[in-house]
């Protein structure tokens, strides 16, 4: 039963991820990304990480992508137009890259021993919180500083144009 759900969500996640990068309409791109995040959340839930699943939907699908959609709609981004006739070399390069990625993925899967998901301890939100403010405090703070730096950087880039 879980296996069926997993394969179904994984398939939907892959297809919607493809749509997210390939569709011409930016609104559809954002929506496809929402579907992808939703499927990833389902995968988390299947592994027993219900907190991570809820946080994934709450933060990514519920907040960040709403912001994306807001910006895309506000700027009224037009549909992407093809830059010109595709050249044959593009097709070959794309095919080669896909092949490399596929072979790499298969090799990686073969190299890593299949692992059972660690069963989360009871009240694993508490456990997660302790890890974040305990052993991983430095990394956690570092990430927030990184996000702040990115934010300031974006502001500086926008300011320069005016």
């Amino acid at each position, binding site marked *: 039963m879980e296996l069926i759900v997993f394969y179904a969500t994984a398939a939907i996640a892959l297809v919607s991820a493809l749509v997210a990068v390939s569709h011409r309409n930016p609104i559809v791109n954002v929506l496809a990304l929402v579907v992808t995040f939703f499927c990833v959340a389902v995968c988390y839930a299947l592994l027993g990480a219900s907190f991570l699943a809820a946080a994934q939907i709450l933060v990514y*699908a519920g907040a960040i992508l709403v912001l994306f959609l807001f910006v895309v709609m506000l700027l009224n981004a037009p549909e992407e137009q093809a830059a010109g006739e595709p050249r044959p070399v593009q097709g070959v390069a794309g095919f080669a890259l896909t092949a490399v990625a596929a072979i790499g993925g298969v090799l990686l899967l073969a190299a890593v021993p299949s692992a059972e998901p660690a069963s989360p301890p009871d009240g694993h939100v508490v456990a997660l919180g302790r890890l974040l403010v305990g052993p991983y405090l430095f990394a956690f703070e570092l990430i927030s500083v990184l996000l702040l730096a990115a934010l300031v950087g974006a502001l500086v880039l926008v300011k320069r144009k005016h």
Partner: protein
Amino acid sequence: MWGEVAVTALKLLVVAVGMLTAVPVMVWVERRGAAFIQDRIGPNRVGPLGLFQPIIDAVKLFFKEDVTPAAVNRGLYFLAPMIAIGVALVTWIVIPFGAGHDVTLFGVPLDGVMVAPDLNVGVLYLLALSSLGVYGIVLAGWSSNNKYSLLGGLRSSAQLISYELSMTVAVLGVLMATGSLHLGDVVSYQQQHVWNAVPQFVGFVVFITAAFAETNRLPFDLAEAETELVAGYHVEYSSMKFAAFFMSEYINMVTASALIVTLFFGGWSLPGVNLTGWPGLLVSVAVFVAKVSFFLWLFVWVRWSLPRFRYDQLMTLGWKGLLPLATLNLIWVAVAMTMGWL
């Protein structure tokens, strides 16, 4: 196994029927309430006290012509009302409606009478799903290819992002005091101590204000502001597609009321009442319904008493008023917990 399936199906049935019944009742309450507040009579022709008016309205909506404008983005135009009503319908499975720790049905304990009693991130699940509801409104606004709709959708998404933050921080205070994300635990904590609205009154005020904004109700109904945007995001919708938006608004209102009651007003519990078994279950469900009804009436009351905010006022209130207040509440809860007052 089959007992569990049967009980879950039964709970789902009760929840679905309850929500879909709440909509026509609330429509009637809203119209009669508005009339009462404005010193009118209101709908009183169909049935006693006009009680059958919502049924007639529903029949009218069913048989109305379903117009699809020529210039809409078809796929998204059809998807938007489905998202709105779908998201509204799935939020109720984590809300505990009554006691019932000691009641079994077909050998299955009716713990809290919620549909998904084992989901230990109940509050997060509810917040996550309710934050998805905005996609329905935004997509309706964009796909309709109408400038009023688009403005409504844009306002709605900006409003949601601004108020969701304060709402979540206000909820954080409750969760910290409880020490659990499970709504059943939130209720039993309040049963043993005191209703959260007492020590966290500021958090409660922030939460209820944000709830009005999240449900797009006056004084924050900027997304549909009739006087400036015709009807906002659902201008181009008719018949049952319009009804889907209409219903989702009322269902969201019921969900918000239930959440207010569960988080801040002791859920199904009533101080001094400690019944067990089936009587306890029935009384607690009645208490829950009574409390939710009060907040539903509050929604109607406020709608017909306060004028609409201007858009910049809405944003100022959200970022400069509610967010600092919610943070203050959080600090207060942290201090109180450290000092051992809570």
